[in-house]
């Protein structure tokens, strides 16, 4: 199991942040996820070994946080907020629209072409601009079905071009 040079560098640096090694588990899992697209079985074993905890303990933590994945997501992970503010402003309808447009039914489902995955999430801190969604690390606010169509089309094009 090998991490990239950047990830290794980040690991060494993060080790100095905490008085207890295991404290870097959650933030570092997020970086692992960015590197591999999800937390792979190999990286679970690796991080457990490095932090001197059991792989089971790593899995316990992963399963607690919904933003940590052990299965690949789409290239663009569409996270639609349905928490209270967004819900009042049509968040659930937006989620329904995204799902319908991309042809997925279950939470965290990946489209057959692997470009998108759709996830219902709790508050993403964009209440002032509800309803909102987050695609990977980018925010999209004051959503309407039309706006969503346009956003998703742009991402699809981007994916095809790459």
């Amino acid at each position, binding site marked *: 199991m090998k991490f990239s040079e950047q990830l290794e560098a980040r690991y060494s640096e993060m080790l100095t942040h905490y008085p207890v090694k295991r404290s870097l588990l959650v933030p570092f899992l997020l970086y692992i996820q960015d590197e591999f697209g999800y937390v792979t079985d190999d990286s679970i074993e690796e991080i457990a070994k490095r932090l001197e905890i*059991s792989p*089971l303990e790593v*899995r*316990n933590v992963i*399963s*607690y946080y919904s933003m940590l994945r052990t299965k690949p997501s789409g290239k663009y992970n569409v996270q639609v907020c349905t928490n209270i503010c967004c819900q009042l402003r049509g968040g659930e309808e937006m989620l329904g629209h995204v799902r319908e447009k991309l042809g997925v039914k279950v939470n965290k489902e990946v489209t057959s072409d692997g470009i998108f995955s759709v996830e219902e999430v709790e508050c993403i801190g964009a209440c002032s601009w509800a309803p909102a969604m987050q695609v990977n690390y980018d925010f999209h606010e004051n959503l309407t079905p039309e706006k969503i169509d346009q956003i998703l089309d742009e991402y699809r094009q981007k994916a095809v071009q790459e």
Partner: protein
Amino acid sequence: MADVTQNATENVTLTVNGRTISAPKGTLLIEACKQHGIEIPAFCYYPGLSLQGACRMCLVEIEKMPKMQTACTTPIAEGMVVQTESEKVVQARKATLELLLANHPLDCPVCDAGGECELQDMTYKYGAGESKFIDIKSHRDEQQWSPIVFYDRPRCILCYRCVRVCGEGMDVWALGIQNRGQGSVIAPNKGDSLDCEECGMCIDICPVGALTSASYRYKTRPWEMTHVGTVCTHCGDGCVTTVGVRRSETGSEIVRCDNRDRSGINVDFLCIKGRYAYDFAANPERITTPLIKRDGKFVSATWSEAIELVAAKFRETLAASGPQSIGVIGSNRTTNEENYLLQKFARTVLGTNNIDHHRTADFPSFARAIAANKAQTASMSEVATAPAILLIGSDPTEQHPLLAWQIRTAVRRRSSRLYVVNANEIKLTRQASHIAKIAIGTEADFVSYLSGNTAAAANLGTAPEVLEKLRDALSAESGLIIVFGPELRGEAIDALVSYGSRIGAKFICLADYSNSRGAADMGLYPDLLPGYHAIAGSSRSALAWASKVPATPGFDLTRMLDGAASGAVQALWVVGSNPAARYPENTAFSRPFLVVQDMFLTETAQHADVFLPAAFAYEKAGTMTNTCGDLQRLKKASDVHGVKSDFEIIIRIAEKIGADVNELVPFRGHTFADAGQSRGAQSGEADRNAVFTEARGLASRTSPLDPLITLDEISKLVPGYAVSRLDLAAGNMQRTELVQIEPAGIPSHPEMVEPAGNALFTSGTLGRYSTTLNSVVEKHRNAIEPIEAD
């Protein structure tokens, strides 16, 4: 969790429900209340484990605190005013229960825990009979995680006791919690299965029926069993296991073993063998009728036929070739009374000192060293509170699971220091503060090094600075307990005890079987009488019957077998032992007249001329001495038609030979006992009288088959066995001592010691006939996968 009460001298006074109570500073409120008989219910709180504060059942009102507090995490404070049964508290408990029951399946009528379920008890007490929930209960199918463990998620109330006892208690860490909120589940370490020590601690500690065992699940109801606390028959640690039995067509059936009453020296602990390896008792291969070999084949016989044949053959052999031509091999698993009786019978009736057993520790050397140095032995309980422990050899995790638990407890709760000296990387090094990995077979050199012979370090193959640090740290310890395995024998034990006694250490000598120590103490040796009186020595006259004992030592086990092979030993009597498995090439078993008392047709029993089906430990009464010298009462739990206890078999053979049974077992020939019938409504008086007389050794012993008569004799005649009968009868452990008899007068034969080599999932012959142990062994064999190259 640190043991907060250990050094507390200061008491704190508080008021609970209007009552003034006091407890040492630092005590948790829930414990302080418990000590004063005030029950605060809790699911997640478990004494000795870390605090969780998860279940919210223990909420109480504390004056000047705005919200209710969890009594399990609140240390008591001076002047605290607490309400534990106020209307508000009761309402809160009811609400907590309602939440816990929201997804609980209420399948109590079929649940294993029904009748002994903590959630059931609390619901019964606090109501919560109605629910405001209208949602459908979320269901998950049950899962089997190992040959032992089943998990039924809907019943789980997420108290995390299992997770903590597996990790903190067992140091296995095989269970975790996954997901969150009401989606949480207990998760095993291999995704859908467990890789663990299969101890079953998680199952017994579960307050509900979420974790169940393969051997007990859906078999019976708790109230259909009788529960008898007796001593485990497997290793030498002497755990108390509570046997649950139920009537069956074969007499009675053992349905489970557990330690729910927590009354033994093991308190919470039992390993897989103590919990699940009782099933050999009902193995279809068990023999329940006496067998006589005719024309090379076993045929069934009645007890009278078999016993008469044995007695006749013994008489014949005695008459024709004298007492030296009979050999007796005793057992490590029979009771003290049986061992004592067997050697008394061999010596005074057969007139031979040809008696021995499979020695798994050098107890004669140990007894000699302890006596010569006026040193003390340590009990199993003391290990858990010892400030420092030196472990030389052995692998307690595999061979002495309770000892390993006690050591872990000391390190975890008292921050005790553990010094491990071993040729292998044993698991307990995880708890060790000092580790010396030495070359195989150099344990005696290490002792020599400790005693000041620095030159001995050269043989150990250990870095000198490691040894020096360990030695210096040890010499600074007080209250040290030194535990050593069979690697140390003979003079090495003398040297170790001499070293340890200078720093005030106590000692534990490890032997492998449930009554190995008892077999040694009761004199199953050709050259030692009970209490380590040398046959050739002068102190033997302390034994009332010693005048009848031949003056010269008899054959040890090897010489007996040699004699049997050569024809010098013409009759061999093997009680609860399987020497043929250890000496498979030996022809000793086919030549003499061979009598075997056992449960199964073992390698030895195959050669028998007469096979006598014996009861095993859970089917008889008596006492056993664990490897530390802790004496405990064995209570008869189950019964199987056809078999007899070794005690009864010996007596019956003695009677048929024409011995005076009353001399062997001094029962009274006639009865004045009032069994209660004559008093009618006052028969309770008779019961109380029975308890009183029993406790004082005054009970009228009317049957020669009562092993407690022999216990009376042991208490009187065997040095170190004069224990309190009242305590023993109450089920408490009693310490025996290794007493000074004759200075340096105890002959020992270190070369005769051969460890049994049992591991966590094996237990000699008994293990081979245990379906549960075999299934676990099989699983672990299959689990060994080739390691992938990097």
